[in-house]
């Protein structure tokens, strides 16, 4: 039934996105990219693909950071076009999607400012997908007054709501008779990764709620599944990364931090919550998630986080394994017609493609041998469907 009315508002935007499906690089093209001997060769190869227009103006010996910026700019332009063609719920939905990148940008800016990095450099490094006009208002600080920085962020940016919620929560967690000084200290010492993870958790929950309340049944069916997986992915990531983390020395501290960072949605919550919060080794984590989906199979190959120091470029990390499964899910979601899942999947898969290109560019610029295992470490979007 959704298909009859989906087209009213969103048919055009959806069809454009489906047209863009042709711009994904194929497996054969990846193979050719792997055979490139130098960065100029890679660049001239990319100019024959859909990326031609965004690279033409550049010097052949393009640094990877600029390359990434160009590729992201192209994705951002496409996304902006779709956003301009959308109306009503879809516009709101697409804005929600971009919030994730805005959070990244704002956190990066704050971190950069704390470390006294020049604001021009910071502005040139922001992700074009999460660009919004107010980001320029985040200014260099006078002295050490971080609260004014947060105040600027709070008032000015579209993601201010999340910041507000986050700050309220962290201030509440302070001891009873807190002073203004304590709050200042809190702002100064807060780790950017912590801020980022908390904000993204809030964003994810908010987005989930939005999907649940405002979208049509087909979109819900597709998206809620994807978001549940993403939430589970985040949960597993948080638990995994906190195993053997030196900053968190007591078990109680680990559990409270985990509780703050793990999303309260997904397949794992709330059934397995008690078990995963207390998982202190990889084996107990595996045990905690075994009831859900195929998570145990995914974790089967994950390297032990306690031996983190031994990881090298060859290790297939947890993130690699999860991205791989994620890509399969997104490719499947992309093929369903009449749902908003296609926009989400497109964004995610393109991000993966950019990650692939950048990874290959790094490999090429380091001139690694062709039998190096790192060459295999790319996840090709839609390659799972043929199998």
């Amino acid at each position, binding site marked *: 039934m959704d298909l009859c009315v989906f087209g009213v508002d969103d048919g*055009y935007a959806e*069809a454009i996105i489906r047209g863009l499906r042709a711009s994904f690089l194929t497996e054969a093209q990846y193979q050719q990219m792997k055979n490139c001997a130098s960065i100029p060769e890679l660049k001239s190869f990319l100019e024959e693909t859909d990326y031609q227009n965004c690279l033409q103006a550049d010097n052949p010996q393009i640094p990877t950071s600029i390359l990434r910026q160009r590729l992201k700019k192209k994705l951002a332009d496409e996304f902006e076009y779709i956003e301009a063609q959308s109306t009503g719920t879809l516009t709101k939905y697409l804005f929600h999607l971009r919030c994730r990148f805005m959070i990244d940008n704002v956190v990066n800016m704050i971190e950069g400012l704390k470390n006294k990095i020049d604001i021009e450099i910071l502005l040139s490094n922001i992700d074009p997908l999460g660009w919004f006009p107010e980001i320029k208002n985040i200014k260099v600080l006078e002295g050490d007054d971080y609260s004014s920085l947060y105040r600027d962020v709070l008032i000015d940016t579209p993601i201010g709501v999340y910041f507000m919620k986050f700050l309220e929560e962290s201030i509440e967690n302070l001891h009873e008779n807190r002073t203004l000084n304590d709050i200042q200290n809190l702002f100064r010492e807060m780790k950017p990764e912590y801020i980022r993870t908390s904000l993204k958790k809030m964003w994810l929950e908010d987005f989930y709620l939005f999907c649940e309340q405002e979208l049509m049944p087909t979109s819900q069916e597709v998206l809620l599944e994807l978001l549940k997986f993403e939430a589970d992915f985040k949960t597993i990531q948080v638990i995994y990364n906190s195993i053997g983390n030196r900053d968190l020395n007591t078990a109680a501290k680990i559990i409270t931090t985990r509780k703050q960072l793990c999303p309260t949605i997904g397949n794992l919550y709330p059934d397995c919550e008690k078990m995963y919060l207390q998982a202190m080794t990889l084996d107990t984590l595996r045990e905690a998630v075994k009831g859900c989906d195929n998570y145990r199979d995914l974790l089967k190959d994950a390297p032990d986080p306690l031996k983190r120091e031994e990881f090298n470029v060859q290790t297939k990390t947890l993130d690699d394994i999860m991205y791989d499964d994620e890509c399969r899910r997104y490719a499947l979601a992309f093929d369903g017609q009449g749902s908003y899942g296609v926009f989400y999947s497109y964004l995610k898969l393109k991000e993966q493609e950019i990650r692939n290109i950048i990874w290959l560019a790094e490999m090429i610029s380091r001139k690694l041998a062709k039998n190096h295992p790192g060459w295999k470490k790319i996840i090709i979007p839609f390659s799972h469907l043929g199998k």
Partner: protein
Amino acid sequence: MNWGNPYDWTELEWQSATWGERFMFIDPYFWSYFGVALALATSIIGASWGIFITGVSLLGSTVKAPRIRSKNLISVIFCEAVAIYGVIMGIIMIGKVQTIESYPDDQIDECYTTALFGGYSLFWTGVSVGLSNLICGIAVGVTGSGCAIADAQTPETFVKILVVEIFGSALGLFGVIVGIIQCSGASFLKNCLP
């Protein structure tokens, strides 16, 4: 079966009339023209809905793959055919309606019964044709939209989806065939000629 002329009914007779009797005296011409309107309008709603579903997808896909634009107009034509079925049925049905100046006095009941049969028959023909074409239009539209999107990615799929579309389009034709048979018995004057 002598109901008399309802226009001559007294207040008391109206009050004591059952719903069946009141229903009976809805004019047969009202039923037949309503049937024609239903057949035409519902078919056209179906067709335009289908065209619109196909159209947006076709336009969107054309942005990145301009080659599909003329080829996929065939989906639009299939939807259009559904509206044409409605028009054809409308013309056939309206041809069945005959008017009469006045009923012969001694045959008024027979005449009215015949006319009533004609009216009902045309009305329900309109319903069956209209509904089957409405659904057919949507079916062709949704398939056509899929066809445009798929053709933009993999041109080989075009012919295959077209077959599906043709079968979808046949559904409306079933409605038309049954509709023609359904309304073939309708006549307004068969038993009334002096």
